[in-house]
């Protein structure tokens, strides 16, 4: 195995990890051949696999305390008046917008009304009768 090939192997290992089965086919074929030919190559591949095995073995698992965490998150929120205010303001703004939209929509002429009624209503709102 040449120094260039070793450099290529290390580059591939760092790019794709130690599981050769997940590598692109061409790269995997080269790595398999290098592993057969060179003890150093085999050790490098094994080192990456040991890293990944140790990562899997040291995965920081967590006991199930979801309800307690949810309660704490909500409590934290309630204990923080600024955040409470921000949430209330967002609801308040949404409510005010809904009210304004409701008033506006209520003031629009009904589509199922007779055309003369629609015109009359529009005129009433605009004071247009005085124009005529």
């Amino acid at each position: 195995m040449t120094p260039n090939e070793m450099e290529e192997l290390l580059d591939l290992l760092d790019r794709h990890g130690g599981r050769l089965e997940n590598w692109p086919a061409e790269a995997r074929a080269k790595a398999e051949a290098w592993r057969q030919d060179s003890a150093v190559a085999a050790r490098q591949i094994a080192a990456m696999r040991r890293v990944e095995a140790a990562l899997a073995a040291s995965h920081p698992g967590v006991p199930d305390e979801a309800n307690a965490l949810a309660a704490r998150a909500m409590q934290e929120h309630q204990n923080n008046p600024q955040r409470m205010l921000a949430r209330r303001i967002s609801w308040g703004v949404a409510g005010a917008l809904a009210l304004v939209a409701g008033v506006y929509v209520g003031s629009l002429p009904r589509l199922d009304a007779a055309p003369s009624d629609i015109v009359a209503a529009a005129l009433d709102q605009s004071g247009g009768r005085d124009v005529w």
Partner: protein
Amino acid sequence: MEDADDELLAQVARGDGVAFSRLVALHRGKLIALAARIVGNRAVAEEIVQEVFTRAWIHAPRWRPQGDGRANVTGWLVRVATNLAIDQTRRVHYAPLDSAPEPIDTSISAEQQLMADDDRRRLAAALAALPPRQRAAIALTYDQGLSNAAGAEAMAISVGAFELLLVRARRTLRQAMMEDKAQ
């Protein structure tokens, strides 16, 4: 899953505490694992995740799934947890996760068990020496099982930048394992 998340978040937006508990139950474990790997401290990780869910509770009313490239609840939670954890490492010195004794694996020999324990200790030391963003790339890839594209999105960087972090982290960890083996 995403539709279920969106529905849960819609219920949370209406102040539904039960839906919030379900959202927390769905995501809490993975988020704590992610944060713990980055900050190296489970208690700090739990505080980070509590903050993530506090933000979710606050921002739920403003949540809007968006079209094809729609905002993704899981992606948002992972992104916030990752950012908070990286920020936290600027304030708190990283300490390797408490290595509680692993259960004995009876399928391997005592010698293999010793080697595995040794590898875990070496890995912990090497992880501690990595820059926090490289640790985050490792956590997103190996603990969360994310693709490079999803990992890049979680860290709000390009895929190329994420791959570079991952390559550098893997190189450091592999070399640490080789050096230790040579000693």
